[in-house]
């Protein structure tokens, strides 16, 4: 909505391009099923543009909805965003409060105006150690998840408050509990079981992980899922609010291209190169 242009019809044109593009990507049959985002750089962006930190986060939120829209349109099933780390509790009280407030408003915003969730049938989930949250925040989360729980087409995971290590420990504890209750035996415990007991269990495996602001670390985000062989990790130099649909589209294109490339390679096709070229030009 911040992108209102002076030329009439421009907006329509843009959205048309966006639609055609996302359907094209969808047709490639190589769309990431699960994308993770580390939305880094809101504060730095605010400082750079000399506006308030709060507005920086606001801009970050708009950027997020734009990108999620493109993703879901292109056929991404699950998106996971890193909103608040357990480590963030170590910051000053004032900052924690404002971050909490912000996240709470975001969650409300996503579900209340319902554009995004209804249009793409998104089920909103809040994942992480929610026992660390205040009561009223919890109530809001409950409401948000309640409201969208019947949506089936797509999933949005909001990590709040989350760390990858806590997620692994949580999964381990769940399994240990089950073993103690006699539901499973020790011998049955394996990798897949741990994976299914993660917060993202039962969802498609992570295919693509995007981090902005030029930092090349995972910062405790989806460490189990992201270190698997074959996960594409994109580290971008731009700050999160600058990360727009065009860049996202480019990444999706890159992903699709590379995926089809490796598919051709891995199927070990024995086609002659010449015949392939012939095909191209006939």
């Amino acid at each position, binding site marked *: 909505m911040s992108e209102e242009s002076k030329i009439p019809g421009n907006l329509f044109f843009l959205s048309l391009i966006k639609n055609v593009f996302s359907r*094209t*990507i969808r*047709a490639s*049959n190589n769309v990431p099923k699960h994308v993770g985002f580390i939305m880094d750089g809101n504060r730095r962006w605010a400082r750079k543009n000399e506006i308030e930190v709060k507005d920086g986060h606001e801009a970050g939120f708009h950027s997020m909805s734009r990108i999620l829209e493109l993703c879901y349109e292109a056929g991404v099933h699950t998106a996971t965003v890193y909103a608040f780390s357990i480590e963030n509790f170590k910051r000053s009280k004032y900052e924690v409060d404002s971050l909490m407030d912000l996240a709470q408003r975001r969650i409300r915003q996503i579900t209340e105006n319902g554009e995004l969730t209804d249009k793409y049938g998104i089920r909103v989930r809040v994942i992480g150690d929610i026992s660390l949250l205040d009561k009223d925040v919890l109530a809001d989360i409950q409401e948000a998840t309640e409201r969208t729980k019947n949506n089936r087409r797509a999933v949005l995971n909001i990590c709040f408050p989350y760390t990858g290590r806590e997620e692994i420990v949580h999964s381990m504890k769940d399994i*240990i509990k089950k*073993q103690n209750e006699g539901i499973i035996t020790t011998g049955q415990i394996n990798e897949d079981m741990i994976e299914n007991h993660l917060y993202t269990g039962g969802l498609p495996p992570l295919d693509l992980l995007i981090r902005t602001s030029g930092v090349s670390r995972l910062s405790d985000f989806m460490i189990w899922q992201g270190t*698997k*062989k074959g996960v594409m990790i994109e580290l971008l130099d731009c700050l999160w609010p600058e990360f727009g649909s065009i860049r996202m589209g480019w990444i999706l*294109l890159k992903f699709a*291209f590379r995926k089809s490339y490796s598919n051709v390679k891995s199927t070990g096709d024995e086609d002659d190169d010449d015949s392939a070229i012939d095909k191209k030009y006939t």
Partner: protein
Amino acid sequence: MTMTEAQAINTTFLHDHKINDKESSETTGSNFHIPPPAASRMKGGNANTKRRTVQVISKSIFVDNRPNKNSDSDSGKFTEGSTFWKRENINYLEFTFYKIVLAELFFIYGIFRYFQLQYNKSKLKIFDLLYSPSNTPQLIRQDVIKLNKIPSRLAVILEVKPIGDVGGGLKGLLNDASELVCWTISAGVKHLSLYDYDGILQKNTDELRNAIFEHLSIYYGPANVPNYAVRIPHFNKVFYNKKGYGDGKGKVAIEVSLLSNRDGRETIVDLTRTMADLCSNKEMNINDITVDLIDTELKQLVGPEPDLLLYFGPALDLQGYPPWHIRLTEFFWEEDNNQVTYSVFIRGLKQYAGCKVNVGK
């Protein structure tokens, strides 16, 4: 002697790779000719991108129509079943239209990618010329001394390349590993973790120890080879120096840990099993299991978290590196690089030190 035997064994091991990768078997043609390092870059496994690009485009666009529809119905299970079928019939024309647009997009991207690849390759060549260790620790020292901080622990992900490729096979892997050990010692980093997915280094410890010894004597002279320890956390074993060269009671200049996929998720599974048994025997309370406890345990089983992780492949792929140990680790890799070279190593250290790493990343 043992070298050749091990290689013979490994030839069969790596045979699959060879078959899988058609390109490599093409370039293998002359087994005895080893291309010079500079040319090797162009002849590597992924060289013929232009031709492959065309192949990919044609494959995915003109041939793949069927599976595409299948997977559409796959995603259809998330939508309502009945409306879905109707939609697909109407959309067949539209679908073809999008396929054509996709062809164009891929074509444009392919051209872009081709130029990007050439650009990256020549960039890497230039860096190779700029940074050359020339087998002398002093030169490396000079490069490192300018940095205001160096990592205390370094991790590297190595890949076994098909035997026909340059730097391929077990020999290539050992060579890369021991070069890295030399650079790391010269840079003054005390801990190095070498990770390879299949644990080939773990299985060939003796060869690795010999190779490290050989390389170190090139760098430091046969008379003053520094002491080194090779640790395999999974078997809980430590080896010192080359076989028969002292048991390493003295100080070691570097500790090399060999990790594999087994040290990652599988170790966490093992830990879960042990803890489950302890809890059911009432030797442990489930509420005592915290992030800190698991952290201590895994540090003991696998080792501490590295500060910097170097990857010598074309695009970052963590290859199943132990997930617990990568939380705050910084990554460094060069796009479209496929070789273990000193320039990547030193540029990784530079990035870690907070220097400006120019272009590309």
